[in-house]
């Protein structure tokens, strides 16, 4: 029970396209303005990571309906170098991590569920889900 659509990330403009797709889908699911903005910011962060560190990849958006619970999933995948130290990437509060509140801990906070699968030299898939309350 899922509808999935996707945007390939090659240039910075593709980040905007991914945001647009995410916002439209979030609206359709029924998220309010604040949650739309949060979901879109999470997409920005994930898409920019692909653009900056993997060079190319894609953002998929899936509308979820799990037994009457509605939600949205962002799946960001690339075939880049993989994340060497996931623990480091998930650590909080480094002014060097590209600014306050940014990075993967930020994405995790913006969404409800968060999961990283990464393999050295093979690539990374990040799945982040937000449920409608």
């Amino acid at each position, binding site marked *: 029970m899922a509808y999935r659509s996707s945007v390939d990330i090659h240039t910075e403009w593709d980040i*905007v396209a991914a*945001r*647009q797709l995410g916002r439209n889908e979030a609206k359709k699911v029924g998220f309010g303005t604040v949650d739309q903005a949060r979901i879109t910011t999470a997409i*920005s962060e994930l898409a920019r990571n692909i653009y900056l560190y993997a060079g190319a990849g894609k953002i998929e958006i899936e509308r979820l309906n799990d037994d009457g619970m509605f939600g949205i999933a962002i799946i960001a995948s690339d075939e880049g170098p993989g994340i060497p130290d996931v*623990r480091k990437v998930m650590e909080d*509060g480094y*002014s060097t991590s590209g600014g*306050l509140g940014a990075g993967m801990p930020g994405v995790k906070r913006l969404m409800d569920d968060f999961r990283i699968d990464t393999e050295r030299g093979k690539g990374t898939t990040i799945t982040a889900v937000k449920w409608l309350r």
Partner: protein
Amino acid sequence: MPQQTEKEYKEILRQYLEDQSEQNLYMGEAFSRKLIERDISPEEVISIHKSALKDVLPGLPSKVWHSFDFLIEMMIRYGLALKEHQSLVKRQEEMQLEMEVASKVQETLLKTKIPAVEGMDIGYVTVPSRTMSGDYIYFVGNDMDEAGVAVADVMGKGIPAALCMSMVKFGMDSVQHSSEGPSGVLSVINRIVEKSVNDSMFVTMMYGRFDAKSSTFSYASAGHEPALHYRASENRFVELDAKGLLLGVSPDARYEEGSVVLERNDFVAIMTDGVTEARTPDGFVEKETILEIISSVKDRSAQEMAEHVFAELDRMQGFQLQDDFSLVILKKE
């Protein structure tokens, strides 16, 4: 700078109000990152927004502008919390640096070398849940036909545990002979811990010793997590446990000793509770699951086995260990 910021903000807002495009929101988001970098507080953002809107939409009723003044007032404390955050991030980084130095000291202090024993493949993984570990693995051996391994877990984590553990290390330094029996080793360490540490600190420890001549693995435990013995011939696991008080409780504690004979392809896994009590968002990982993970790689080398079990359990915990993780695999070739 603030005037420049206001100008940029007004331009992005004006464009957004024209067509409400995603493009403009993306520029807005990028700009908001710049604002945070430039140390612009949220109440200043509201103030900038107010004056930008005044330019773009003149002639609104004065109550709209009053409402922004109210919003500024509401944001002051959010701004304060953010400033406090910046100072805390700085302090945190200093502290982190100190911890990293300390963990290097700890690493040097605790370095150990897997002994070479004929017919025995040994591998291990030990990973702290925070910067400093409260788990400890130490090998002794004669590099011929005897190997001893101590696996200890100090109650508590972080610095106090690390300090207390340095003590176990110095205890082990006095046990340099691999011919020493497990219950004797625990008695020695117990007396040292009991003497040096106050009552609120406890240490669990298992000491195991493999004798290649008789292919016997003997062990004693000070309240430690049981070890697992995989019997290849029966394809099943047997727990190895032995009675014994935690280290540091009583100077006269006695430690029971057990032993098993290891057959070809048997292995023994000694671990700390960070392995068996892996916690995921949905609760503890089932013991069954852990055994399955170990079984699934039973044909690989001891080191590969230990690393695989760690990788799997780390992943299941979302890469955020709740406790120090230590696992030693002793595999009969």
